[in-house]
């Protein structure tokens, strides 16, 4: 099993969510996040004093999937989140050792 983690622009959350639902993904976890990459931050000005805001708001999406579904999900997120501008985010995939559904105790593939 794989954990797909995507950092995207907050304004693209709805697009990515619908695309994933359309692709049959059954669940996801969404977290508000802050960070910077190549986009760096932006400058705000208060009474003439400039403040560099380097940690900018992002959305983190986590999806757990079977090994064979992972690459399609990455593709779906990547397409839906793309605005072709700097700061669109990043997606990475890690291996998951085990998954348990809390209510039923189901494990592995059945718990996804």
């Amino acid at each position, binding site marked *: 099993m794989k954990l797909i983690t995507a950092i995207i622009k907050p304004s693209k959350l709805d697009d990515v969510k619908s695309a994933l639902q359309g692709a049959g993904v059954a669940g996801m976890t969404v977290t508000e996040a802050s960070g910077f990459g190549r986009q760096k931050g932006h400058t*705000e*000005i*208060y*009474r*003439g*004093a*400039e*403040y*560099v*805001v380097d940690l900018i708001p992002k959305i983190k999406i986590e999806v757990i999937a079977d090994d064979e579904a992972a690459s399609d999900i990455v593709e779906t997120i990547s397409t839906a989140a793309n605005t072709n501008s700097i700061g669109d985010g990043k997606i990475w995939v890690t291996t998951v050792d085990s998954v348990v559904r809390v209510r039923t105790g189901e494990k592995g593939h059945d718990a996804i």
Partner: protein
Amino acid sequence: MINGADTAWLLTSGALVLFMTPGLALFYGGMVRAKSALNMMMMSFSAMGVVTIIWVLYGYSLAFGKDHGGLIGDLSHLGLGNTLKSVVGAEGHQVPTLAFAMFQLTFAIVTVALLSGAIADRVKFSSWLFFVASWITLVYIPVSHWVFAPGGWILSHLGALDFAGGLVVEINSGASALALALVIGKRKGFKRDPMRPHNLPLVLLGAGILWFGWFGFNGGSALTSGALAATALINTQIAGAAAAITWVAVEKIRDGRATTLGVASGAIAGLVAITPACGFVNPLGAMVIGLISGSLSCWAVALKYRFNYDDSLDVVGVHGVSGLFGMLMIGLLATTTANEFGGDGVFMQGGTELLQRQTIASVVVALFSFFATLALAKFIEKTIGFRSSSDDESTGLDQVYHAETAYDFSSISIR
């Protein structure tokens, strides 16, 4: 014989001016970081409590009791008990002494509350309360006597003009704020960490309430409800509006964007500048004062970075600088067509004498306020301590002094 119309307007004005202090709490509270927002607002609200008690017990009496040498009043009105039936004001325009005492009380409250902006996020709350009581007694009461009380040396001997408190409120608070900022020192991380306003909508709401209350502040200072109050009222509106525009115009040209903090700050700068002048200039004079003060204070708020003092919310740059500017502009733009009891400035065929008097009054009040506050703040620092501990400042004063948090940011922390 009490004049009903004048009394009604003065009573209303007292309520309007009192409303400025909660407005100031929002204006300042939104400008600080979230972790000390409540402490910032508490400094204003607590001033309403402390100053009221002092004013009733002896404050009004020392400020407006029988004059002694042009410097201070007497103790004849302790507790205000003997003023219940008495009146003040010129024949035909008499109002109850208590209406006047209430009106003046609200000025004292908002003036000391203004000072809290210079020392945001870093002073002990108990020391602040002690400071409020002693500053009102040692600094505010004498200055208000000099300027507002019959017999006071600025009003009755020097003859400088201050309609609604350019000296008493604005220069007084600006100069005192500078002294406080110097004694207390800079916030941890000043110039290094971003300390952006945590809630600009609150700042705008506060600025709106201040603007609204200022009509009582300036209009009420006519102490009558006739043409002079109307002149003061419209001049107040003109200067606030003009300065709001010029502040953001400077921002647009210099920084590239017009900001909401700028439009709020500009309005306040214009209202400050017109405070001493609103009853002595004509509407176009008010517009000139507003237009210049907006850009002047927009420039002056940057001085703290150049000279390295942390006047956190710009009491010096807005109230000190625009207050001084308004006082001096009376010497140029005052006209007896607006107020026969006023004077004529340099540009109104009046010569330079008025400008000289305005300058002397402004400089003396600024020096007195600065050094008296410097001494008082140093005394408090040496005795009960004034500045918060470094840890408390980092944690945030809301939690440390008030056991509260302004916002429940997380749905996890309390269940």
